[in-house]
């Protein structure tokens, strides 16, 4: 078997960086924003959705292998990629160069947001051992609290806008990098179409935020501890 050189590994890691941004991270983002928007229907529906996820078999494995490790890898490679480039958007102020710059900036912002987001939701959930049906009332309580202050709302707004932009523009970059979008017009049209996708995702997220902020309802576990199904 042929061993890969360091230079070939760097190429493969960069390709994997581009791929992990879409699968699984991009898919997860769509799923996450979509699932959370159940809150716009009602807190019971939202609780039902969160209960479903928290009672999934192999949840920890799915979270670690399909979400946490890919995000850590994508972030690490992202910082490496951003460090390699040299911004020149003030000298060459073309729209695409702005997107290039924003892609790197939003990547960093999303990373910081995720540290905050995971640190205030998943982390306390793990520490306090809120599993299965205990998870949703706990998480709903945290989100009600987060969305009750303007600082919390601002942090989430910046986080959601950055993540959805980063995904929409990253989808465009992925399509070029992997050779799915070739022609100049195709690149431009897809760029516009993907921005609409990003906008819809952003609105989805903001609508969920609004539902939490306008109607902070607490809930009890559907099944309490010791109660058999």
């Amino acid at each position, binding site marked *: 078997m042929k061993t890969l*050189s*360091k*230079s*070939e590994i*760097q*190429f493969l890691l*960069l*390709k994997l960086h*581009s791929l992990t941004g879409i699968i699984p991270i991009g898919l997860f983002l769509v799923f996450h924003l979509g699932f959370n928007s159940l809150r716009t229907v009602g807190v019971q529906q939202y609780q039902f959705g969160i209960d479903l996820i928290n009672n999934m078999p192999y949840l920890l494995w799915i979270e670690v292998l399909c979400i946490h490790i890919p995000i850590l890898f994508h972030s690490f490679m992202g910082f490496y*990629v951003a460090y*390699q*480039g*040299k*911004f*020149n*958007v003030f*000298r*060459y102020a*073309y729209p*695409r*160069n702005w*997107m*290039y*710059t924003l*892609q790197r900036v939003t990547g960093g912002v999303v990373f910081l947001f995720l540290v905050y987001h995971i640190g205030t939701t998943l982390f306390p959930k793990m520490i306090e051992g809120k599993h299965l049906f205990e998870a949703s009332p706990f998480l709903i309580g945290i989100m009600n609290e987060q969305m009750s202050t303007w600082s919390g709302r601002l942090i989430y707004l910046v986080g959601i806008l950055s993540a959805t932009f980063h995904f929409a523009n990253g989808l*465009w*970059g992925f399509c*070029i*990098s*992997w*050779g*799915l*979008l*070739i*022609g*100049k017009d195709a*690149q431009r049209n897809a760029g516009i179409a993907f921005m609409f996708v990003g906008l819809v995702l952003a609105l989805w997220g903001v609508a969920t935020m609004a539902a939490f902020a306008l109607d902070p309802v607490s809930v009890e576990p559907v099944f309490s501890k010791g109660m058999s199904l």
Partner: protein
Amino acid sequence: MSQTVLIKIRRKDNPNAAPYWETFELPEKPFANVISCLQDIQKNPVNIGGVRVKPVVWDCNCLEEVCGSCTMVINGKVRQACAALIDPLEKPITLEPMSKFPAVRDLQVDRARMFKDLEQAHAWIDIDGTHDIGEGPAIDQETRHKAYELSQCMTCGCCLESCPQYTLDNNFLGPAVFSQARYFNMHPTGAMHKDKRLEPLMKEGGIANCGNAQNCAAVCPKHIPLTESIAEIGRQTTFHLIKKLFVE
């Protein structure tokens, strides 16, 4: 009363010297361009302070925007000095050497890296060796049109100067090389050595290092569809990668 034009030049006495700005005042001549102004400075190298200085050094050759050697940063943007008419330029005019290539002196830089990188990417078509390998296949009209667009690259370096991913100290190959690999891969005889051109692009500094800022196509004086070439090479390397990983 004749008008004058001020030209500010970022100078450097040798590759390791500290750069400094020097301003020259020249009488404005009709239809003058940056090269003709530099020639006027060479004839009478006296700066705005009236001091006689070393004449400014620059590169030029064809004087019709096809050789690429007079590429420099004019009023902050990279372009060819021979095609930069003085009249429409904002005054005072600033001239800087390209920043992504090793400095030689004043406005002169060493673009050798571009030519080495073209060599790496096998940017030529293999022709007869010790024996005649016969005529190549015919090329259809559409391919020839596309090939002509790509063939206009003069290795001037504008794309690299404006590229945020290309720096003095990294080994990124850059859009010009990707476009040339595409150019020779689309030629039926060149396509026989397709893999030889794709392999070097699938390493550190290769196609995966492109950040899609697309400045290259925006500044290219020949309007070469560089971003299309990048995407096309992206496609070719994707197929090559799948072939390498899962087929062979």
